């Protein structure tokens, strides 16, 4: 809490955990190596010392981590569980889709689950297989689940505090390559004002780039290049909450600019970009210039080592798509 400070994304997330645990002793943290080690990225570093008996190293068992979180919530606690990498959420996918997401509905409101599942994800760090997968589309295809993805430290704090306060389950996606590479101001006392709507991270009248998480920064880099080299003024919309999507904010930002490019690290087919395209053509027929292009990972498994550079959406690919979009009459 306290005055605004400059933090990197990892520090902002840690601050959110610390403040949430200070606010309510119902909040507990669990996951693999989250205790003494502070997690493989050190996000939870220091929490074990500061909140003895409220931070738990678990066995190596993702379904138990998510499933026990369901029970901890029913038992009156507010669990914040870490899945060491988002790819491994599939080990617990039955607990996520069948249980975590449906308990309120199944019990007709008798039970609701204030559970937050934190997971690092996304490329750029030359991680081993499964450690960089982007699964947001599959999570957005799961009713009863909310999905948040910060791109900046301000949201690392604001969205995580909101997730922990949310009476319903939230999967909180942490772009691992941004943990230490992005710094920015964080508002503590007034974080709630940030709300859950999509947010323009850059102004521009010619074009709208829509993205979330790590690729928001890819879009910002592309926007600079579009401005400097091509005189194209592109706005960048940070979706922030991937499910439920802020359709009003999306349409408002798109309607005035007409040309839209969607960018994400998840694979192309049945990715969340398709939903955004479908939503825009539904809600703004005739307004948006077509096609709405998608810059995404190809329909391939996440490749090893340096090959990820060819796999991930680059700012060059975004610029190329943007120029196509503005070149249309």
């Amino acid at each position, binding site marked *: 809490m306290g005055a605004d400070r400059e933090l990197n994304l990892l520090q902002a997330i840690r601050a959110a955990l610390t403040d949430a645990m200070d606010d309510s002793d119902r909040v*507990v943290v669990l996951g693999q190596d989250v205790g003494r080690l502070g997690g493989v990225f050190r996000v939870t570093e220091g929490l074990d010392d500061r909140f003895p*008996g*409220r931070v*738990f190293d*678990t*066995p190596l*068992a993702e*379904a*138990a981590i*998510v*499933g*026990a*979180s*369901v*029970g*901890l*919530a*029913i*038992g*009156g*606690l507010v*669990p914040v569980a870490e899945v060491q990498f988002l790819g491994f959420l599939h080990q617990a996918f*039955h*607990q996520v889709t*069948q*249980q975590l997401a449906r308990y*309120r*509905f*199944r*019990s*007709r*409101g*008798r*039970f*609701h689950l204030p559970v937050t599942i934190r997971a690092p994800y996304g490329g750029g760090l030359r991680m081993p297989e499964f450690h960089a997968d982007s699964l947001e589309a599959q999570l957005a295809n799961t*009713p*009863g689940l*909310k999905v948040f993805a910060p791109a900046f430290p301000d949201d690392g704090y604001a969205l995580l505090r909101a997730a922990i306060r949310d*009476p*319903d389950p939230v999967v909180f996606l942490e772009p691992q390559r941004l943990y230490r590479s992005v710094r920015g101001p964080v508002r503590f006392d007034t974080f709630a004002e940030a709300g859950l709507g999509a947010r323009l991270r850059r102004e521009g009248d010619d074009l709208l780039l829509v993205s979330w998480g790590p690729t928001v920064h890819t879009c910002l880099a592309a926007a600079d290049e579009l401005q400097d080299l091509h005189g194209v003024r592109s706005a960048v919309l940070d979706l922030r909450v991937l499910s439920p999507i802020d359709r009003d904010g999306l349409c408002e930002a798109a309607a005035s600019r007409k040309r839209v490019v969607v960018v994400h690290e998840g694979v192309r087919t049945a990715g969340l970009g398709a939903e955004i395209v479908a939503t825009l053509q539904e809600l703004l027929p005739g307004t948006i210039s077509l096609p709405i292009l998608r810059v995404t990972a190809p329909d391939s498994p996440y490749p090893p080592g340096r090959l990820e550079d060819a796999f991930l959406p680059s700012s060059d690919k975004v610029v190329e798509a943007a120029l196509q979009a503005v070149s249309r009459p």
Partner: protein
Amino acid sequence: MTDDWARDWAGDPNGHPLQCLAPDGQLVRPDLPRPADDVVRAALRLMLLSRALDQRCTTLQRQGRIGLYAPVLGQEAAVVGSHLAIDPAVDWLVPASREQPAMLRHGWPLDRLLASLLGRTEAARIPDDVKMLPRQQSIATQLPHAVGIAWASSIRGLGGVTLAYCGDGATSEGDFHEACNLAGVMRVPLVLVIINNQYAISTPVSKQTRAGRLADRARGYGFPGVAVDGNDLLAVYEVTRQAVLRARAGQGPTMIEAVTYRVGFHNTSDNPSLYRDPAEVLEATAHDPVARLSAYALQAGLVNQDALDAHEIEVRAEIDAALERALSYPAPGPDEIFRHVFGD
């Protein structure tokens, strides 16, 4: 060693299921504590209610008035005997799906239970003060939930115990393993009762695992496991009572394998004659848990035949009345599908 605790206490180093009552109702373990008289009476009444409920619901399904129904026929002692050992006021019940008598005793009113079978979803809602999870249709997924609930009560120092049920088939799922291991590590106040009714739909337990006794699994999680004759209410009650005492004393989880038999079909859409020998079923009915407890209770003079006959009539009347109330609850309108997705 905790594992030995269970074996010694069960009095059988070879891990044969503990038995207190012979099939004819004779007491074969007078050395062990016995339930109080009114516990036995309550057990008998609840078992008779359960049996009548199975009959009625099967009829209702055949009449097309309710959907799938899964009877607990033949497993009543395993379910009732274990549930009688906990206190619904402070303890949690985590059912699998066919433990109707446990749900009723825990406080889910009979008319609400029937409402759930009639699709009256809102009326079927579990009352706020009833510490019980809804039925689980995804096998074994309730076990990590049970561990979490028990874990929460130890973190919060509430002192309640969690009683969870699963079937023999459920023990093959990854969730069974992950839940048991976590329960052991965190030493949570959990009593896990495996209702080994010999079948998972058509799959006999011999194809489910090569383990001699499912209760042997407990050793690999560092807590005791006990096999008990699941058709012997006294044995099930006593074993569960001991397990609950351990849990309340902070000694952690216990795994109980109640060895019984699924006398009926898996559910109303199943036809067991396709995969099992009628002779096997006949043999099993010779171990009927209700007959066994009745014989014991009559011999012990805890009830007389008139009381038992009266029960039979009472429970049917109880079901009639509850069904009438259940039918009076409103059927859900189409908008129900949009409610309770998220809180507002």
